[in-house]
């Protein structure tokens, strides 16, 4: 069992969720209710990672993150090193790849909140921030939980993009799915089986926790 790969996978999944969720909530809310110019094009762009082959997306990100590109130089200036073949690089890639998984469910949840419920909050004296905290987020909670579950589960199993951006550097970019691939390549079926079983068990466990949380939060009375 490759425990460093397991730990790295977990870190990647947690950081992806933590960093992506606030952005996804803001983007989803804007797309649901805001006046976004060329909204269709923006939505299509966010959805792109869903339909693009991971190797193609990985290739473009590799080119974009390389020290030869303007973006790569900018990112290198921010992080102190070029993001390719590093944890930073696979985290940035993971954030981009997971954008549709995070934004879509939250956007649908926001869209399902009737406009007059928000207006009732304004007329009841609630500021926009108070309305978001006390009305919109609790009502969109099932969508937010779905976004967390999808993003987390998807990151646990991400392979193609991470391989293109990060390769397979132990302790830096070798996540569990890549470690499993390496084991299979080396005909270590037993090792691959153990890691696959651990990934499967952990994925089920994570999804179960998230859904239990969703049910509890959904049925509990929200003290205000």
């Amino acid at each position, binding site marked *: 069992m490759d425990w460093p790969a397991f730990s790295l996978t977990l870190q990647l999944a947690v950081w992806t969720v933590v960093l992506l969720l606030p952005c996804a909530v803001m983007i989803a809310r804007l797309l649901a209710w805001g006046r976004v110019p060329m909204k269709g094009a923006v939505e299509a762009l966010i959805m792109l990672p869903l339909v693009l082959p991971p190797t193609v997306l990985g290739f473009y990100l590799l080119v974009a993150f390389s020290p030869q590109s303007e973006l790569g130089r900018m990112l290198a200036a921010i992080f102190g090193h070029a993001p390719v073949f590093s944890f930073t690089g696979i985290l940035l890639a993971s954030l981009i790849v997971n954008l549709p998984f995070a934004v879509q469910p939250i956007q649908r949840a926001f869209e399902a909140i*009737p406009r*007059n*419920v928000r*207006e*009732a*909050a*304004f*007329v*009841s*004296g*609630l*500021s926009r921030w*108070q309305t978001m905290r*006390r*009305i919109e987020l*609790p*009502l969109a909670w099932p969508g937010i939980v779905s976004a967390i579950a999808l993003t987390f589960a998807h990151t646990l199993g991400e392979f193609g993009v991470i391989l293109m951006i990060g390769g397979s550097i132990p302790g830096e970019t070798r996540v569990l799915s890549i470690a499993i691939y390496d084991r299979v390549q080396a005909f270590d079926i037993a090792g691959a089986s153990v890691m696959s079983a651990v990934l499967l068990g952990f994925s089920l466990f994570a999804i179960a926790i998230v859904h239990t949380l969703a049910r509890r939060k959904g049925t509990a*009375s*929200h*003290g*205000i």
Partner: protein
Amino acid sequence: MASEPPALSLALSQGAPIPLHVSLSVRRGELLALIGPSGSGKTTVLRSVAGLYRPAGGRITAGRETWLDTDAGIDLAPQARRVGLVFQDYALFPHLTALDNVRLAMLGERDEERTRRAKELLARVHLAGLEARRPDQLSGGERQRVALARALARDPKVLLLDEPFSAVDRMTREPLKEELAALHRALDIPIVLVTHDLEEAQSLADRICVLERGRVLQTGTPEDIRLRPAALGVARLMGQTNLIPAVVLDQSHIRCGSHVVAVRQLDGARPGDEVTALLPADCISLVDAGGEGPNLLRSTISALQPLGDVTALTLDFDAMRLRLKVPTREAAVRALRPGLTVDVALDPAFVHVIRRS
């Protein structure tokens, strides 16, 4: 003595996207009903007062406060307007209990005070004991009451009701109407009720404002609007069917078909003018044969339709047809039936002349 200034005054003006040219004022403790067909701008007026819609031009004042003045660049946010608004489908917060729905409208106050006031308001709308229920555990009438309690929670300067009875069944509607009437008597703030239900407007409002395509057709007491409509559109909107083309003969007579009908007022019409005569049911009475008085006419019952405790009659005169409702008991006593000839009297005081624009 100077008259009391209006507690709510508005003048809205815009050409598009929704044409709106409306001026209104409502006194403290007065209930004004806005009625009109779909698309007449009633709800837009209400939303403008609440700050949820910004008209291109206009001014809205509540007492000494200016909520909107497009010329002066004033446009207070809904949060700053202290308006109580009951939405058509109530718009309760679905994840909160009835108590929390009301409590949330008092965020600025202390916690204990919010709870105490929310309980008091829910008790006032007869919901004591249901505080812990969420909207999906309440009936339509109960949801409406929570919405009303929430609207009152901010101690509003204006109460706005957008079709508050449209989402409840008829059985529930009557007690709710009576409660609203009692609340209206107890509240010392202007109330604006948007409705398309004439009966509702007649029974609850102190004054009615009739809107059509964003314009005020007439504002007046329910009786004024019903018996003395200023325009044909108002009469039709109020459900008046006895509208007969007529010609003014002199200062006190008009001709309807072959009949000369005495009238009390001509509303500015001159002899020779072509007008429409409104002969509301209030002016028509069945009389015994051989009676005396002005406007005695002989007619034939062409149709008779029992409607519970009243019976609708269609009376055919020479080139004139009128509809009248009489108590079913009277219809039975007089043995009214289709084909029967009856004498009717038209009270000149209630014959109303509408000038053609």
